[in-house]
């Protein structure tokens, strides 16, 4: 295996585009090293992107949004003084991934590119309307987070393409988000179901709504009807019922040791209600 540590993304793209065998990018390494050890992945070219300037930075952009470097770890995001004020749901989702040790290395962009349907940070990022910047041999493009994973362990990134930054939109007034997952213990587990909700309110009335579910389909599932169910409501019981029905209808889960199809579908409704209530309270408090 060839190990490269380029100092620019142009160099990283050139190495990846010209590589003959299996190529992987290395940020926190908490997935790829496990895959290498178990033989699931045997990269011939490993490109460590941590030497590229800006990959460790969390920057507030001119429009009030956030640009998060691809090597920024969960611990660095959780400890940041301001970003959790804007996007508490994204930060609580990132903070649920693994142990203290894993938080010290793992990155949300790695969580996204590992393309697990149960990735904790992804439903929260989708609900937030996050995008990534992707650079490749043919230039740079911005991609909504939900368009990166295409199936378990698979992404839409083409040969030579690398994610160069994660972008959260400006939060603005009256915005609130939340993420929760179900696991049968309190720590160190993989989501049986995860739910992210982001809302905006004006007074008591919801004006924008996005929701995404994790671990209920081959990829994180954006529940596109959430806005129809919630916008114009005050999150009354009827609105919550409609949201829960949508969440359950969006489920296409598997039966496995963590939960049956029936249980996961049931939980999707429970968590849609629960997480929407938290996001609503946060949005009301942020006016």
């Amino acid at each position, binding site marked *: *295996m060839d*190990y490269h540590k380029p100092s620019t993304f142009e160099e990283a793209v050139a190495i990846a585009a010209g590589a003959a065998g299996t190529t992987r990018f290395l940020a926190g*390494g908490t997935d790829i*090293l496990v895959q290498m050890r178990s033989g699931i992945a045997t990269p011939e070219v490993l490109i*460590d992107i941590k030497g590229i300037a800006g990959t460790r930075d969390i920057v507030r952009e001119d429009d009030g949004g956030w640009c998060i470097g691809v090597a920024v*770890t969960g611990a660095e995001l959780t400890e940041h003084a301001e970003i959790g004020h804007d996007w508490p749901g994204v930060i609580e989702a990132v903070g649920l991934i693994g142990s203290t040790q894993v938080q010290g*290395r793992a990155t949300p962009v790695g969580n996204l590119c590992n393309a697990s349907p149960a990735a904790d940070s992804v439903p929260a990022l989708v609900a937030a309307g996050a995008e990534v910047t992707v650079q490749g041999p043919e230039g740079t493009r911005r991609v909504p987070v939900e368009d990166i994973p295409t199936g378990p362990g698979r992404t839409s990134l083409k040969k030579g393409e690398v994610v160069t930054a994660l972008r959260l939109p400006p939060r603005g007034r009256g915005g609130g988000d939340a993420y929760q997952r179900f696991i049968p213990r309190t720590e160190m587990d993989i989501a049986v179901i995860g739910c992210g909700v982001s809302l905006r309110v004006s007074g008591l009335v919801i004006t924008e709504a996005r929701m995404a579910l994790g671990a209920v389909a081959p990829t994180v599932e954006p529940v596109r009807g959430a806005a129809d169910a919630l916008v114009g409501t005050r999150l009354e019981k009827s609105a919550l019922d409609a949201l829960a029905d949508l969440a359950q209808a969006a489920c296409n889960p598997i039966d496995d040791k963590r939960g049956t199809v029936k249980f996961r579908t049931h939980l999707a409704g429970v968590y849609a209600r629960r997480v929407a209530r938290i996001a609503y309270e946060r949005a009301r408090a942020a006016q």
Partner: protein
Amino acid sequence: MTKIHVTARINGDEVEFLCDPRETMLDVLRDRLGLIGAKEGCGTGDCGACSITLDGRLVCSCLMLGVEAEGREIGTVEGIAEGENLHPLQRKFIEHAALQCGFCTPGILVAAKNLLERNPDPSEEEVRYWLAGNLCRCTGYDKIIRAVLDAAAEMREAS
């Protein structure tokens, strides 16, 4: 396979080594540098027995490549005591019998020391969450938690 030359600081000392790019930091510590305090429990980042610090940040050395240590500051359990003088955490682990087989202990000491450097007065809940990635199959954890809280109290009095 070409080996890569790496220079790092380990427990304050400059160290140079050659390693294969696939080698984990845990393998480098144990097999190349003779620092066998960090243990391989699972090798997949689940058990915390291989915990070290990387530029002051707690990480699993099994989830890090040796080549990634270039120019970085590593801390292992071997750097915790000052000569013959045990660190308060080490003394309290003995006093509270917070270990039986001892396999998880180096990782827990590194993790607990890192916690107390950040938060000298953690609650029991904070200690339990911080150490959730350090598995112990002997003690049932209670003695470990008590030892950490007692060491924290002693260190606060001494400072």
